[in-house]
């Protein structure tokens, strides 16, 4: 387990990776990626028990599924910096013949990815299937998943949420990135989600709230609580309140950078706010 300073340094480097990746190809989704940088860093460097070598079946280790696949920049950066593939490969993000497709996929064989995602609302079901497979295999390890808040507008989620509680799938921790933004604007304007906590609870889930979702210590603390609630007959949901675009001041608190890359000047400003720590790829 790394100390907080190491995780902070890694997070800063991940932010730089995200900005540089989307800038290079002038496409991709920096906003949600930046908002979840701390969560991914904590997940892969502290929270999950995982093997160094990637195997699709993931027997005997915790598994993670990303449902909102458009935040692939943060996923790729953290996977690379967690040893799944060379960090230099981040240079190939979204270019032809790359394993780093615009949205994550198993199709090109990138280590660390277990399902394609991008078309929203499917990841919860997949994660629950993997959780059921763990139970069948008498594997006590956990399934982690991440979902956008806007993504909860997809109906399949609610089929899955109902299924999980009804079948006591208690080896899953599904995290919702509550940043309150989606492509067309604030979720409250596009299609209000209502009280997400009460909705999950009404569906029979245990809900843990992490109100400072961009604070590593708060994430570690909250996820530890979430972990302690597994194995008790109920699925566990974490509501992670994050700021879209976190760590780059002009990208924060707006949906404007959901799917837009910075220009040269904006990149320099963003990088200046996140000084190199572990070395750029």
């Amino acid at each position, binding site marked *: 387990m790394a100390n907080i300073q190491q995780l902070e340094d890694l997070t800063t480097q991940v932010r730089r990776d995200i900005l540089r990746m989307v800038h290079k190809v002038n496409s991709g989704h920096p906003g949600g990626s930046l908002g979840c940088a701390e969560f991914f860093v904590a997940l892969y460097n502290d929270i999950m028990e995982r093997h160094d070598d990637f195997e699709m079946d993931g027997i005997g280790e915790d598994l993670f599924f990303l449902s909102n696949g458009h935040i692939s920049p943060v996923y790729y950066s953290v996977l690379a910096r967690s040893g799944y593939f060379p960090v230099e490969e981040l240079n190939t993000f979204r270019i032809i013949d790359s394993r780093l497709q615009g949205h994550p996929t198993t199709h090109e064989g990138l280590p660390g990815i277990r399902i*394609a995602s991008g078309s929203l609302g499917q990841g919860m079901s997949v994660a629950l*299937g993997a959780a059921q497979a763990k139970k069948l*295999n008498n594997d006590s390890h956990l399934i982690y998943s991440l979902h956008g808040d806007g993504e909860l507008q997809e109906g399949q989620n609610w089929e899955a949420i109902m299924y999980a509680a009804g079948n006591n799938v208690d080896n899953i921790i599904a995290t919702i990135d509550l940043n309150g933004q989606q492509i067309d604007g604030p979720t409250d304007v596009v299609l209000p989600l209502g009280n997400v906590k009460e909705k999950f609870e009404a569906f029979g889930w245990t809900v843990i709230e992490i109100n400072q979702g961009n604070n590593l210590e708060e994430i570690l603390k909250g996820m530890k609580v979430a972990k302690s609630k597994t194995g008790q007959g109920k699925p566990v949901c974490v509501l992670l309140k994050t700021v879209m675009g976190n760590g780059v001041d002009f990208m924060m608190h707006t949906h404007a950078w959901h799917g837009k890359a910075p220009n040269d000047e904006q990149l320099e400003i963003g990088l200046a706010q996140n000084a190199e720590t572990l070395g750029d790829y």
Partner: protein
Amino acid sequence: MKTYTNTGSKDTRSGFGAGLTELGQTNENVVALCADLIGSLKMDDFKANHPDRFFQVGIAEANMIGLAAGLTIGGKIPFTGTFANFSTGRVYDQIRQSVAYSGKNVKICASHAGLTLGEDGATHQILEDIGLMKMLPGMVVINPCDYNQTKAATIAIAEHNGPVYLRFGRPKVANFTPENQTFEIGKALHLTEGSDVTIVATGHLVWEALEATKELNEKGVSAEVINIHTIKPLDDKAILESVSKTGCIVTAEEHNHLGGLGESVARVLATNRPTPQEFVATNDTFGESGTPAQLMEKYGLNSDAIVKAVEKVMKRK
């Protein structure tokens, strides 16, 4: 001419159920999921014998497909069961992304395909599912012809590593292929040898094709019937070899002529050996309520329709 005997009509969905029961005993990695249609899909035995490996998901087909994709991660071989309409059209994007593009070892098993679902009518009578599934890269598409073959196909697809769409039906139909046959994915089966016309049929239309040969024989027409149980990958070689001998072909399927077996065959012929072809299939239409026999007659999917198509195509040689 080789003849075939109906050893007792049975529904192909029961063949699926019997195959699944056998798989339950022989392959511990096989798991089954159903969206509130256990009785219709004949999954009762598997559920009773292996409650831990059976997942009732409720009326939530999208979730079922996702669960199945997830279950493969950990080495399970999931068989999903619901009607063909809800197995394909309703969950196309879930199959596309979480199963096909992700390369997951999921077997999508679909009953009540086509018009022979009968009285429930067009909302449930999907005639587009073969097209939807065959367009997905990597998807194997199988439509066996009778009980014995459906049972054999069910058992065989567990050994194939990759996504499979297995299509079968509701009504009792002639059971005429061998019991305990070995099913080879992608291998067309020659049922009769003939020299005047090739009839390539799939699913329930295979028996109708055999019935048609009796009348054709009386008229002095020698028909070669090929059972194409696997629409994808298609046995191009068997089709090309047969038409090189007969010079014309009729395709027969319980499906829209747009996107079905016939179009797959037409592509093979157009790119290799342009050959006159007639289609026994529905003509870009929805179905309606009625008995299976009434519907097959009204929509031109029975042995009479095949005879007419043969007579038409032979004039075009």
